[in-house]
């Protein structure tokens, strides 16, 4: 499970995340939404050990991510928005490196690589250098790396960027399957339709504060808009004024 306990994070004088209190239990797929600069990436960077909160705590399965970042990252799989891959290694070599660094023995690493290769259909290019991969192939490999060590928690920042419809379907099914298998999935995205389709709960961050936390039905209830799509609700909540339909298409 993931816990943000009254987390505050500033960049100089700017408050990026302000008293964020959020608990995501096991078996839940949580979508973190928000406009650009809302604090989503800052929150995720604190979770994966790339930033420290100014105050409050971020915990993964009870482990403080600032005090024991190694132990916390052992339990997490992370798919960043900008993937880093060693260009001069093949996909298999990168997976072997990741397995070794997660403490897996060789046989286990080999088995897990075979499993992920099948799941993400990597077999056709797994032994090619990653410098020859397309964006979609890279994204699938990054997912495989994140899941190689069977993490308890999966953190995904913008999962659908660059994926073709088939790969996107695979990822959606995978995220749901991981949550249903009892894992915690935190997904940050601008693709509102994706959140609407697969998330158990959503949180909307705006100016560093959690403006809404709950299910889509609860959001509709809160905004008294029972039949509106998430896009409309999101714009209403973050801007106060959703665009009228006529203004959506430029003349």
């Amino acid at each position, binding site marked *: *499970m993931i*816990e943000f*306990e009254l987390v505050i*994070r*500033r*960049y*100089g004088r700017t408050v990026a995340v302000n008293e964020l209190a959020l608990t995501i239990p096991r078996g839940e797929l949580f979508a973190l939404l928000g406009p650009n600069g809302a604090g989503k990436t800052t929150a995720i*960077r604190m979770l*994966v*050990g*790339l*930033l*420290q909160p*100014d105050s409050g705590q971020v*915990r993964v*399965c*009870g*482990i403080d991510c600032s005090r024991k*970042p*190694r*132990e916390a*990252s*052992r*339990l*997490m799989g*992370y798919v*960043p928005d*900008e993937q*880093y891959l*060693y*260009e*001069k*290694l093949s996909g298999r*070599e990168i997976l*072997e*490196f*990741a397995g*070794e*660094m*997660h*403490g897996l023995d060789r046989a286990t690493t080999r088995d897990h690589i075979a499993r992920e290769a099948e799941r993400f259909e990597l077999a056709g290019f797994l032994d090619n*250098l990653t*410098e020859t991969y397309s964006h979609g192939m890279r994204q699938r490999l990054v997912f495989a790396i994140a899941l190689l*060590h069977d993490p*308890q928690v999966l953190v995904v920042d913008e999962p659908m960027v660059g994926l073709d419809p088939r790969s996107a379907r695979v990822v959606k099914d995978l995220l749901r399957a991981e949550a249903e298998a009892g894992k915690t999935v935190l997904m940050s995205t601008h693709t509102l339709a994706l959140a609407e389709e697969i998330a158990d709960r959503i949180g909307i961050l705006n100016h560093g504060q959690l403006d809404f936390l709950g299910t889509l039905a609860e959001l509709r209830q809160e905004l008294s808009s029972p039949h509106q799509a998430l896009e409309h609700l999101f714009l209403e909540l973050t801007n106060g004024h959703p665009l009228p339909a006529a203004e959506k298409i430029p003349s």
Partner: protein
Amino acid sequence: MTVDTNPPVGLPSPEAESRGFLRLEWRILRTQLAQGFAKSRLRYALVIVLSILLWFGLFHLVLEGFHFMKGTLPLRIHEQIVHAIFNMFFLALFLMLIFSSGVILYGSLFHGSEVAYLLTMPIREEWIFQHKFQHAVMLSSWGFVLLGSPMLVAYGVVAHAPWYYYAMMLPMLVAFVFIPAGIGAILLLAILHFFPRKRGHLLALTVVLMIGVTVWCFGSLFSRPETDLLTPRWFQEMLCRLQLAQEKPLPNWWLSSGLLEAAGNAWSEGAMFLVLLIANALFFRELAGMFAARIYRRAYWEVAGFGSPPTRVHAGWFDRMLNRCLGFLSPSVRLILVKDVRLFRRDPLQWSQFLILICLLLMYFANVHPVRYSIRVSPWVNIVSFMNLSVVGLLMSTFTTRFVFPLVSLESRHFGLLGLLPLKRDSILWAKFLFSVGCLLIPCGLLILLSDWRLGIPPMLIVQHQGTSLLLCLGLSGIGVGLGARLPVITEQSPSRIAAGFGGTLNLVISTFFIVLVLVLTTLPCHVYFARQMEPTFAFSGESAPFIRSWLIVGSLGSLLAGALAVLLPMWVGIRTFRRQEFH
């Protein structure tokens, strides 16, 4: 708070992490070598051959110098002078390596996307640090090994050193390099951890302090000489002034002493210094690793968390003046040129090291006064001014390798923007060429003018030197931009890494050959001509005056041709590649 019932599975041992990184490095190296030999055999062969030629050229030059000293000076003074030269050389290197390893580590440990990836994995911080530290050591010291080894081998030859002198040389150099690199890393981590918000000020303060110390050293070295140049008494006086570099607690003293002991058939003393250097290298490497284990992640958090304050920029008086001065150029070339000047100006981390070198040369030239050294009537003034011109040329070649060669590669990353503008691709390269010529010509011309003025050389020779500097600036710029376009490194974001790669090395080697060619063809006969007028028996006494005149005429024409080829040929090759290049 709910505590998870599943404890974390065993984390990898330090040995496993070390093995993992070693395997990673080995696999990357293997792929790079295999790709290089499969696709670029000619390129690699060319670089290897040219590097060997450069190495032997330097070796021969230094060998002559050592022979000259050995023949001129009494044995005892000769040994002391060699010790002092080694001490000074290694001390300068020691200080520069502290600074350069710190700068490289700052980029790779705190701003690289690889470390952001590694920090999200359960890897010990000290191993991430060591992984990047080895890279920084290699990047900051390859030039030292390439340029320092000919000097040490030449000394070994002159001193008739035994085999173990040569065997100890490389381990001693490698061990020595780790000491300043470790100190630089510790200083960097401490500054970023304890004063993250003042890091800019502290960096500036460090630079000022280093310049201050260097000014003081040079001042004490070159001020008020009381004896004639290059006489035994002058050497002894210089020896006293080099005392600072000969402090026994300094690693440069250990290195020079170890090498000289080994060269003097004292293998046990040589081995003792080797062990001392290795022990200290390991100590500083471990100390830096311990520091990293405790504070690296926190320092990373501090740096990532503080961010950069928003900086408002606007077209200042300099940009407006530049725009007006370049009115004769086509608008596209002018705009790209002004953009490049802006980018260069706003990135002080990149050009500060170059500025330090120029300042050092300025101080040195300002202090070389012929009256002080009683060399006004001596042809030595010719040699000193010739050497000064050569040094400035070589400095400019490092500038083009470090800054001009990576320009096209760095531009390629933004080609999505530039490529969509109604610009001819050729104008981008010509703009970069002009930018480079402008950046080189001003410091190069001024430095040489200062040197010539202080030395009081004849006006004709001053004009010749200015002409040569123009030729060098044009040729070096052509080589830098042309090769940069022919051999771009599109995937790399760091200019220092681009410069340290294959193309950068080739650029440095070709630039050095070009400088040597121009100097030998035209400047050397000029100097010989004027030196013979002062003292007919000075140099090339066996050659007739018509020979010197012919050399001068043919050489001048040859150097003009070489200059034109150095501009046109690489630019033509570069433009052809750049027109066809596909950017993503």
